């Protein structure tokens, strides 16, 4: 199974991009989708209705969403795998800029809007600097010069990133992305670890354990289905 982890600030165009990917690749592979968010998420219903694919959501509530992502990804990969998915797309909440949700396998994609502001690539830290691919969206709203200024800023943060520009609503110029997804390798569930370093803290994720799945962790832990501590606010 191939894995795509998509990060980026709210309203940058992550879901529009996911829709283009599903539209293009649905005929070639079975796709499963997970949306991780904090309070509310609608993408699971939206995508399963529009494309009739396997879709799930997870709300992190009081947990930081990247932390929650780490906890549930092990179960989620198993869920997608056991349902026979060939491609598993995980869309992160994209809120906290301390961490990045990318793993050591599959493809990590950061989505940035052309109108997000020129300093966004630097401010977004690991979400940009650890991505394999950066996709700049909403390019129809700005001049070519301004797009190129933003692209240059991204390159200065992460010189080796593969850059693409698109109008995600129309799916323009994504030819190369589809090729990269098709040619990406299958993941090995047992050796999946985070690419970036977790923040300092007191639970097992906070002190730097990279393993995926709640069984490798203790402290503040949540499972994909059901929760371990009743007092935690879980959002929706």
């Amino acid at each position, binding site marked *: 199974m191939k894995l795509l982890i998509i990060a980026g600030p709210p309203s940058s165009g992550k879901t529009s991009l996911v829709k283009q990917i599903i539209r293009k690749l649905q005929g070639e592979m079975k796709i499963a989708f997970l949306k991780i968010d904090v309070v509310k998420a609608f993408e699971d219903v939206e995508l399963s209705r529009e494309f009739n694919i396997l879709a799930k959501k997870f709300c992190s509530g009081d947990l930081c969403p990247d932390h929650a992502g780490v906890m549930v990804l092990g179960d989620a990969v198993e869920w997608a795998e056991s349902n026979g998915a060939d491609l598993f797309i995980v869309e992160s909440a994209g809120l906290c800029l301390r961490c990045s949700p990318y793993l050591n396998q599959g493809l990590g994609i950061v989505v940035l809007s052309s109108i997000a502001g020129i300093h966004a690539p630097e401010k977004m830290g690991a979400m940009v600097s650890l991505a394999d691919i950066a996709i700049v969206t909403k390019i*129809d709203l*700005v001049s*070519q*010069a*301004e797009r190129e200024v933003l692209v*240059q800023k991204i390159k200065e943060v992460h010189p080796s990133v593969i850059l693409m520009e698109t109008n995600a609503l129309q799916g323009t*110029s994504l*030819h190369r992305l589809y090729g990269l997804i098709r040619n990406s390798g299958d993941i090995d569930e047992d050796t999946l670890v985070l690419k970036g370093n977790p923040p300092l803290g007191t639970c097992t994720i906070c002190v730097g354990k990279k393993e995926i799945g709640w069984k490798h962790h203790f402290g503040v832990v949540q499972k994909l289905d059901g929760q371990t501590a009743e007092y935690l606010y879980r959002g929706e």
Partner: protein
Amino acid sequence: MIKEITILPGLDKSGMKENFSHIELTAGETVSIVGPTGSGKTAFITDIELLAQEDTSTRRRILINGMTPDDEIRSNPSLKPIAMITQNTKCFADLSAEEFLQIHARARGIKDKKVIDDTIELANKFTGEKIQKNSRVTVLSGGQTRSLLVADAILIGAAPVILLDEIENAGIFKQEVVRIIQETGKIIVFVTHDPVIALLTRKRIIMENGAVKKVLFRSDLEVKAAHNLLEFDKKVGIIREKLRAGKTITKEFVTASFA
């Protein structure tokens, strides 16, 4: 080096294949794209700018010198042989004009620092109120922004192909823009509603319903018409500038003949 750009047909708005086998734009050629609003003029030049590979809404393909362009050329500004002036009259980057141009020059791989001053100087030829080096690009007017972007495309984009989307409707001095870029030996494509610009170009592409309807070559008669119109347009320009400067219409303007 770019000798020619080839456009291969895509689909019109009803999904029918366009009625041409290929359109070639060769170095030194000026082209105008005309047609009603919504007919697909901007989409046509955007396809060229993005070097579309059947992955835009029109499904067209663009070749450079007869070959499919490399993926890297599509997304690396320092390799991109195309500069485009879009209709945008707004910059969102929180930068001064100087910083904006410096970063763009880095993106385009230009080392010469003089280009920054030259670009601002050229921009100020196109616009009434001067742009300062330390002006924030976010607060420039629509006309100033477009002037800066046109100058940027000519000197920093410095590409062999320049695409201009309706330069006439931003209150900038279009004659000046047209004069400067026509002297270059590049492929210049104008999307336009302006008859003067349309007649100044050698080739006219007519759009309808999202598709190329036909391609016309300028006739000798049209060359004459272009020169007459140009004189007429200059006179209109003089009146425009007088009005803009707060002058009133005098008798000589009322009786002026534009024949």
